[in-house]
Structures are given as structure tokens and as C-alpha cells.
């Protein structure tokens, strides 16, 4: 099976991964090399008698279903790129791009996050 440029770009979009244009040809070559290699499993007759593989112990010991405080050395505000009032701040999923996908107009209140006039949520 051969993977082309379009397929690599489709998968990159599914994986939420930006791929720089100069990188695409090399990725096409390497993904084909890897997928051709793993495709040798196609030639393996599957044994009907092999039980399904289960990682881990046969019996799982679950802890008591009780909510307990998590003793964190520092809060999420110190880990996240942006954080306010208990929320992780990100640009809005929406605006022109989402409206274009949906074929509708941009809602009036849907302003881009990088608009300095917008307050934090």
C-alpha cells in the first residue's frame, strides 16, 4: 500500500499536528517505509485458538470509590500557559474558521481571543 501526500496531510490533521511543507515529502517516504514494514503481518495466518491478549492482572483491584483531596505541590495555574478563575485559557474554537466550516455567519459575540478588548472568561 502506498501513502501519498494527501494521506499524510489528512492524518496530520486528524492528529492535530502541523506539518511544515518542506517536511511532507520526507514524511511520505518514511511513513511508506514504516507501513510497508509492518504490513508483513498481512502474511501471517491467524491462529483461531490464540486467546485474546490482556495486559495486566486477570483480576483488577479497584480502590474505594471515594472522592479524596489530591495533595498537589502546586496548582494548575503554575503549569498551564494561561489560567484564570479556575479555567485554562485558550483561543476560542470558533470565529471565522468554524463559521466557514458550518456555512454560517460569525456570531456577533464570537470575537477572536487575541482581541485585546476581550476580557478573560
Amino acid at each position, binding site marked *: 500500500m502506498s*501513502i501519498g501526500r494527501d*494521506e*499524510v496531510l489528512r*492524518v496530520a*490533521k*486528524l*492528529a*492535530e*499536528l*502541523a*506539518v*511544515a511543507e518542506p517536511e511532507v515529502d520526507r*514524511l511520505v517516504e*518514511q*511513513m511508506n*517505509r*514504516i*507501513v510497508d*514494514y*509492518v504490513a*508483513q*503481518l*498481512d502474511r*501471517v495466518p*491467524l*491462529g483461531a485458538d*490464540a*486467546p*485474546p*491478549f490482556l*495486559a*495486566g*492482572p486477570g*483480576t*483488577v*483491584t*479497584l*480502590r474505594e470509590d471515594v472522592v479524596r483531596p*489530591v*495533595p*498537589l*505541590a*502546586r*496548582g*494548575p495555574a*503554575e*503549569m*498551564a*500557559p*494561561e489560567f484564570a478563575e479556575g479555567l*485554562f485559557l*485558550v*483561543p*476560542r*474554537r470558533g*470565529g471565522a*474558521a468554524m463559521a466557514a466550516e458550518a456555512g454560517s455567519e460569525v456570531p456577533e459575540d464570537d470575537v*477572536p*481571543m*487575541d482581541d485585546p478588548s476581550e476580557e478573560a472568561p
Partner: protein
Amino acid sequence: MSGETVAPFTELARETGRRLRGADEAGLNAALHWSQPVLDAEAARAEALAAASAAPLPLAGLAVALKDNIVSVEEPTTCGSRILEGYVSPYDATVVARLRAAGALAAVKANMDEFAMGSSTEHSAYGRVRNPLDPDRVPGGSSGGSAALVAAGVVPAALGSETGGSVRQPASFCGIVGVKPSYGRVSRWGLVAFGSSLDCISPFGRTVEDAARVLAAISGHDPLDSTTVDLPPLQAPAPLADLRGVRIGLPREYLPADLDAGVRAAFERAVGCLRALGAEIVDVSLPHSPLAVPTYYIIAPAEAAANLARFDGVRYGPRRIGPEGDVRSLYRATRGEGFGPEVRRRILVGTYVLSAGYYDAYYKKAQRVRAMIAEDFRRAFERVDLLFTPTTPTTAFRAGEKTEDPVSMYLADIFVSPASLAGLPAMSQPIGRSEGLPVGGQLIAPMYQEARMLAAAGALERVVPATEEAR
């Protein structure tokens, strides 16, 4: 470790600091994060614990390096990646808490292939690690920083992580001991996930006993990881005096015609040592083991593609705003710039094999072959107590030798990935040298039979000329 007079812990911390500085100045590039104040604080805490403890602590004053995918609150955890640059965990991994409870100093974070994806520690965003025995060669990977620190004598023991051989392979390349426990023997709480059905935190030591003692300290059920087995914690076994009555299988698929001649010579000499110890050597077959690498390179990237979805610029590390300025563009730009080439490749392969139309052809098929590989082991262990193989098909290769062809790099793990897929305990120990470079021998045991494996390894260690040329 055992039998040594224990100096005051603060002096051990200072000595560890001196050795780390020496390794840094020598360009080993094996330690990513450490500081003398944190080491000193660890020593003070361990000393207070030892003073308050009625019984001797099993790892008193022992400096244990941590692969940089094991979280601790004092030092950053980057997984060798730019996408986690500067990230400091708000909690400690269970293994870190257990090391400390045993009296160890857990304060050094070791370099690694980015997100544990690699076999040479050349895929770290923070530069390649050098093999202490030959700086032009790789230390193996992905736990190459941990292995190099132990092999260079900087720390007596270290933790790495295995997904498909990432402790046994660098142990072999660096001439030390690396022990992968059964899947579920050690808690994964606080290990940054790569392939969740495969990942195992695993210790390195300079001797079988050192590695066994560290494994014993970190093993046991953890309520925070429901995949840990509810068995009593492992006890480090004494080495067997001899191997009479022990049946050891040599799987013929692990001795291909093109096996490196130096590796073959060291392996055959080690088999002679096992015979001399009284072991019965039995020819066995694991017919599906040669399919382990292609199987692994479907399952592990698929699990990685899902696990690494969390690194998106929202909750951790640096953020890049993409050209469209919205959140999807943020995800793509952050991940595109933050992940290195090997991680991007594996995320793409993992996403591809899981995507509509390909799931049955790749992922589902790989899961069935995985079951066949595990079944081969189960049948073999009906006839033998342990299996013995070379750990790697060659000794440590030169830096840059395999970076252009990902598949040739993947094949460095051809003898270690089968046990990973089957979830079995397995270990590498030095069995000789070939042109000055270490050769490792691998013991594989049935599920949860680490004690049997370690006791036999201790017997072999006593008699095998581990630092001598085999031909």
C-alpha cells in the same frame, strides 16, 4: 551497595554532585536536571528518616537517578521534549515515594529519547547521550541517560522505563544490569504514558543484586494504578548457588544466521557457564517472536497517538499560537513545533493505523499477533523454567548510524520487544565483551516469576567473565 560502610548521607549527596559535575564536564549529557541543593535536601530527609526508623532502610543513602518521564515535584519533567520544557509536576510518582521511603535519594533526572521513543537516546530534544565506554557510540535507548549514569559510576542505580525494551537494550549496550518486571508489578502512577498496555518502570544497577533491591523497593500494588497486580511486594532473592534442576530454553529464533559474531561468541560462552552451573539447556521455538517488531510498531504508536493527545499547549509547557489564531490552530502549532521528528512520525503512524478503514488491517491484526507471541511463551514455559537469549543482535552502534532509517533503528529491539508484548519479566546482564564493547544476555521468566529470574541471574553473574572478550 550491600556490605559498604554508609557515609553520612550528606557526604553521599556531595559525592554524587561531584560525579554529576564530572560527567557533565566530560560531555556525557546523561543528566538533564539536578542541583546540589535538591540533592542535599534529599540527603537530609533520608537521614532523618533513617534515624527515626527502627529497622535499617533497604536503600539507605542510595542515589537513584530517574528517567525524565517519571514525575517528581522538585525537578522538571520534560520527557526529553521541547513540548514539556520547564514543566514541573505537582505530585510525585509512586515509585519516587517508594524510593524515598526506602531511604534513597531520588533527585537526578536522566536524559532520554523524546517520550521514550527511540533506541539510541539520539532523539532527545536536549542532545544525544554518549556511551561511557565509547563516546562515539550510543548508550542505547530510550533510557540511555539512566543507563549511562550507572555505567559511568555516577550513581549506583537508576530507574528507566520499558515499552519495548528501553531498559534491557541500553543495559546491554552499557554493560550493566537492567530488569523489566512483569507488567503490573510496578505502579505506573506518575510515569508519563507512552504505550499504556506495555509501559513498565524498570531499574538499572551495576550488579544483579543492586537492580533487584531497587525493584523490590518500588514493586507492589498501588491503589492509584489499578493495573498493578495485588501480590505481596517482591523480595530481592539471594543468588542461587548453582542451577541444578533448572531448565533453561534457548529459543532458536533469537540466534539467526546473521547474528553478530562477537555477540554469538559471548552468548555461547555464557550458555557454557549455565551448563557448568548445572542447568539443563533445552532447544525451544518461539515461532512468532520475529513478528514482534512489526507488531510493536503498530500497537505502541497507536497507544502513543492517543496518550500524547494531551500535549496540546493548553495544560502543560510552552504554547504556540497558530496562524488562524483559534484553538485548533493552537493545538497544531504547539504540537507541530513541540514534538521532535521521531515522535511526530509515530503519532502519524499511530493515527493512521487507528483511522477508519485501516483499524482492522493493522491494529486489530497486530493485537491478534500479540496474542500469538504471548501464547508461544506460555507453551515454552510448560517445558522450561527460564529462557536465555542475546539481548541485542549487535553491540552498541555508532551515533548517527541508524538515524536516517527508522526501521533499521527499530530492529535494534528485535530480541527485547517480544517479552514486552507478552508482559513478561525479562532482564539483561553483561556476559562478555566484543571488540571492547559489552554484550548482554537476556533471561526471560514466566509472569510474576522475577525472583526465579533474578536468583538464576545472580548465579550466572558469579561465573561469567562479563568484562572479558569472548573470542
